């Protein structure tokens, strides 16, 4: 089993729903994003195109970040999810350097609140209890593994049942994201990857990402 994601760039409208859903799901502190939208323009007038690339951790099959971690804090699970054990991370940031996709963030500002000088909101206080992020460590997207694990325990199928599917996927109003098992040839993601020629970002780095894009 290897969880993976397909992002259809033909459908993405750049609404930032995935970004916000991710921030809310993981109670991410200010100025940190596990899911981002890269927006740019290409072409020349009058044929200018707005390009939107949603990016997140690629949960590579050969993760450079895990190889360089001096403490084994970056762990690759059997289902392909690459996650960080905050209790083991020493904050050396070698993984931040080694990730060619720049999706890792060093979390240094533990006390920062969203509304400066006004204290933590109720939501932030709940977040610090429910989903504490350790200051001085690195964090990144974990494919909402808590949702996946809880869902699988309850007999749900990730990618099919919303309760067991990453927040960015279920929040997408344009249905641009698909989630499922890349090792299952009959899963929706495998079929889409094959039929619509899903492309990973920078395959030349040899990391074998689990996130594929259907290009325009």
């Amino acid at each position: 089993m290897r969880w993976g994601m397909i992002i259809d760039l033909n459908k993405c409208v750049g609404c930032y729903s995935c970004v916000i859903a991710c921030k809310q799901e993981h109670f991410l502190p200010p100025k940190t994003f596990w899911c981002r939208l890269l927006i740019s323009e290409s072409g020349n007038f009058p044929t200018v195109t707005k390009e939107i690339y949603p990016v997140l951790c690629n949960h590579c099959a050969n993760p450079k970040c895990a190889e360089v971690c001096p403490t084994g804090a970056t762990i690759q699970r059997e289902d392909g999810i690459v996650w960080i054990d905050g209790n083991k991370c020493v904050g050396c940031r070698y993984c931040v350097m080694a990730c060619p996709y720049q999706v890792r963030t060093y979390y240094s500002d533990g006390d920062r609140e969203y509304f400066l000088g006004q204290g933590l909101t109720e939501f932030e206080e709940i977040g610090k209890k429910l989903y504490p992020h350790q200051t001085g460590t690195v964090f990144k997207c974990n494919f909402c593994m808590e949702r996946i694990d809880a869902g699988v325990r309850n007999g749900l199928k990730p990618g099919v049942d919303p309760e067991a599917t990453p927040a960015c996927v279920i929040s997408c109003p344009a249905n641009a994201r698909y989630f499922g098992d890349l090792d299952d040839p009959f899963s929706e993601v495998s079929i889409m990857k094959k039929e619509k020629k899903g492309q990973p970002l920078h395959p030349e780095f040899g990391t074998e990402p689990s996130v594929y894009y259907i290009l325009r």
Partner: protein
Amino acid sequence: MIQNRPYEFMVKYTPQREWIERRGILLWLAFFFIELGAGLFFISSFFNNLWGLLIGWLICSVLGGGTHLLYLGHPLRFWRIFISSGWKTSWISRGLYFVSFFLILGAVHIGLLFGATPATPLLIVTDIFAFLVMIYGGFVMNYVNGIALWNTALLPILYVVSGIWGGAELTLATALATGATGLGLAVEEWIRILLIGFIILLAVYFISVRYGLPAGGVSVREIALGRWSPVLWVAVVALGIALPLGVVILSFLAGLEATPVALLYIAIFCGLLGDLATRYLILRCGYYHPIVPSHVYSY
């Protein structure tokens, strides 16, 4: 200068920041001190220069170890690296072992020298670890394949040569300070070779990166013509290379004894400054390739 607007982050060439800004600046100093100290120890060991060995060990442990400690922020984080099995794949973990073994063996060797008991086999093993200490920083950076400026086999070699060169310069400084003329004359010959080697290697490194991957070209352009070009042309080329080279030529033609001592000290200081500036540029101008496919961005 490349100035990315917020929404262009990762769409264009993006410089790494974590290892040069805020607390990351400590890592720049840490690598410099560690390699300089190991270089001084390494060179001094060939000349049985006790002061050089001691000062090299102190630079490596106090300045190098101290800045590493400040960077990580907590001593127990060292311990966590030490007890993990990360050394199998991580150069940072391997480096910690190299530095630790070097410091332990170096302390024993210096202690034995104070007791006037030569221990050549121990010194050979310590020198091997000193060499590994000098080279591991290059491998740490070389492993990062997202940054073309770092991802070259020349980088570890460059760091070793600059570490040994810096060590030779400091050995000359200790010779001048202690009045050991014989040592000074012998080290001066090493410095000539190492300086020329460093110049050639640096030029080959920049040229090979410039004409390699596009991100490497961007990095070298930033170094040579961009915002950080004054650091290259003033600190590295003029002060770090041209001035020491002039002094080396002068001492070669006129003899070391005829060269003003103040000028030698200035050349040593400038040489070390140039080494430090080179390392700064390599860290500061490490650019990532854009994340999105090439048809989306232009530079």
